[in-house]
């Protein structure tokens, strides 16, 4: 899937650029985008280190274990195939919490940790397990309490009440979460039957 999408975007970009007469822009866009991507990763080192450091304190003090115990039932219900007491449970819980609170910089390192744990449980290392698909769906459809970036942008654009979209955003993300989790559950059952 990613293979085809990636190749498609690049080949299509070339063809469209030739038709639009924009081939000159391509090489510049290529260099700028890879530079931006590298700089973005470097700028994230600080935030990743902070959150993985805090996570390690929580792990060493037994806090994540406690959290995993409390949330074990619901998480293992949504994410199938995770054993009781697996470390993946607390990582998933932290990833979801960080997403809901709009802490994207914290959600990514927690999510990647959860992904590693899920991959360790996965029998086919090249094929995503049900729980891995669910983690991605949950990350793509997370409930959003406070979309700070959007509020800041609306405030800069002179909105009378920049935060008035908080309620519509919150409700829309609830719809996204429910439909996302439900579709993933239905699709995983259907595919597992085949």
């Amino acid at each position, binding site marked *: 899937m*990613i293979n085809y999408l990636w190749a498609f975007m*690049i080949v*299509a970009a*070339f063809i*469209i*650029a030739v038709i*639009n007469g924009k081939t000159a822009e391509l090489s510049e*866009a290529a260099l700028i*985008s*890879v530079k931006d*991507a590298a700089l973005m990763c470097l700028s994230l080192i*600080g*935030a990743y*280190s*902070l959150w*993985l450091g*805090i996570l390690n*304190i*929580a*792990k*060493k*003090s037994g*806090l994540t274990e406690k959290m995993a115990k409390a949330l074990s039932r619901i998480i293992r219900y949504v994410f199938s195939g995770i054993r009781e007491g697996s470390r993946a449970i607390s990582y998933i819980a932290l990833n979801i919490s960080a997403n809901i*609170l709009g802490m994207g910089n914290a959600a990514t*390192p927690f999510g*990647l940790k959860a992904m590693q744990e899920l*991959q360790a449980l996965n029998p086919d290392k*090249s*094929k*995503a397990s049900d729980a*891995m*698909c669910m983690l*991605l*769906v949950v*990350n*793509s*459809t997370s409930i959003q*309490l*406070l*979309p700070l970036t*959007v509020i800041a*942008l*609306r405030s800069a*654009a*002179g*909105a009378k009440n*920049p*935060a008035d*979209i*908080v309620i*519509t*955003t919150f409700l*829309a*993300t609830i*719809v*996204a979460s429910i439909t*996302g989790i439900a*579709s*993933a559950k239905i699709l*995983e059952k259907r595919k597992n039957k085949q």
Partner: protein
Amino acid sequence: MSVIETISLLFIPLFIVFVIVYGIVKKTRVYESFVEGAKQGLTTSFKVMPYVIAFVFAVGLFKAAGGFELITQALKPVLEFLHVPGEVIPLVITRPFSGSAALGILASILKESGADSFAGRVASTIMGSSETIFYTVALYFGSVGITKTRHTVTAALIAEVCCLAASIILCNILF
């Protein structure tokens, strides 16, 4: 709204302080634990870098060539039939691929249509409620070597369409 805002801004420092105090109470060596964990920040960031570069590169090319405009043109009749405001369509198309490109489009919608216009509010809601699906898939699956993504993208896109419909309906009711 300011109450939610205050709580949410307070939450991050509060969470950090809580974890550290809990660690001290449980006699954890908090400083050493922090440093040990923080070491992974560097490796995580370097580990995901190639995936981020590969993806941002492809999106960058596609954007520069005018690919998103082309998809927008192609899908416009369908989306307009579904009552998506015309100004918002480029945002809907770009959002699953690139957060920064989508943010740029939102800024121009807010400037041209006004932040308090219907299109401005729908666009803000869509920006806040949806995610960069393809980027997240490339990053998370890439980092552990998964190539077969099964039903992930289908489920995420179904949710995205429902979320889009909900955004438009909610803005119609509430504003």
